[in-house]
């Protein structure tokens, strides 16, 4: 495309069987903790996949 360059397309709205496994880090948005907004976390399921070399 001439006018658009797609930078990321994660298909957030495709829900997989692993969705909601609950193993990811807990996140806090308050200033007193180093606040972790959800978007800067990684998904543990994807980490597992990565580590197993799949």
């Amino acid at each position: 495309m001439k006018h658009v360059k797609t930078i990321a397309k994660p298909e957030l709205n495709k829900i997989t069987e692993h969705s909601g496994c609950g193993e990811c880090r807990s996140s806090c948005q308050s200033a007193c903790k180093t606040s972790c907004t959800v978007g800067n976390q990684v998904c543990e399921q994807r980490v597992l996949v990565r580590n197993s070399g799949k």
Partner: protein
Amino acid sequence: MIHAFNFKDDYFVYDVESGSLHEIDKLIFDILKNNDLANYDKKEVEEAKAEIETLKANGLLDAPAPEYKMDEKRLDVKALCLHVCHDCNLRCGYCFAKEGTYSGAREMMSLETAKKAMDFLIDNSADRKILEVDFFGGEPLMNFDVLKKTVEYAKQRAKEKGKFFKFTTTTNGVLLNKEASEYLNDEMDNVVLSLDGRKEVNDSVRKTPNGKGSFDLIIDNFKYFRSIRGDKSYFVRGTFTSKNLDFSKDVLFMNDLGFDQISIEPVVLSDDHPLAIHEKDMPKIFEEYENLAEEYVKRRKDPEKWFSFFHFVLHLNDGPCYKKRLVGCGAGSEYLAVAPNGDVYPCHQFVGQTKFKLGNVFDGKLNDELRHTFAKTSLFTKDECQNCWAKYHCSGGCNANSVNFNGDMNKPYKPACEMMKKRLECSMYVFAKENN
């Protein structure tokens, strides 16, 4: 829902439901914003419109939200904030914990209570494998012996149960001698070192009990910790207030000191507090985030200066799943805080607010009705969030702030929303620059 925005002369559109990010030209931006197109060539406009339609057809723009039903019945616990010490050896001007006491007595957690809390976490964690414990205070190193024995106990119990712990300690550095540094380096998954930046900025707020600045007391301790930490996780974490709205300088100063994992957070204080950030400060804060983003992209090209700024880290492609994005922190359901006497609260921000007390680790039973109220709170229950383009990154903000400022978990604290959205635009800009 889409969000078209510019970062100076760079234009972007973010598709909220699919999470796609596109770098676009000014023409597409103007079309998406319904701006006047009179100055554009007609053929070009048609071509651009066709590209927009292609993105839509491919599910990359204006994509629909998924069908999802919340399951708020699960109340497993996976993370505890363990207040091992309600006392502090510093007196910081903005401390929400009131010199570490949370408006209560100066108190240390006993080893017995800490062990009970570990049992409580394991017993309530159902099939979760990874458990998290944050050693928090006050200043947790003032109760270092209990901290160490708790780690040892938790690890042994986790082994029996086929689970494992990730530990974090947040420290102001006063007691972070070599021995403590080496211990934390070995045992902690993450270590948070509190420092506000430039010496004069840090010392005007982070003071010792006799009113002196803390910078000189802690800085060598932090540098030593950094020198042994290697590539394991840690953060130098500061707070900015109305007194240092030029906080990008503090971030860069900390980078110049040799730290490469940095976070700086806006202070949250009631409007009448002298350090509070106000609506009128927003334009300056936004400008600072922009300046920081530009300098950040530059420095990250230089291996000597590379650093990570917490709020600009954005995992667009491998971020958390949909469910996580709906509920965020999980305070009150999967994340709880334990006070030195064993009382359990939805999170560290609620500690000491008796109407939010959920129980005590020694009774083993919690107020599940209140926990369900927390578990049910999600993007779906917050009107403002439903129509917010940042929702899947923010997850509806901090419930404690919403309660403290607006008396309702479903009413987000506005200034935090504005800064969140600005940071997200900056992070998308950074992401685009680095993944282009």
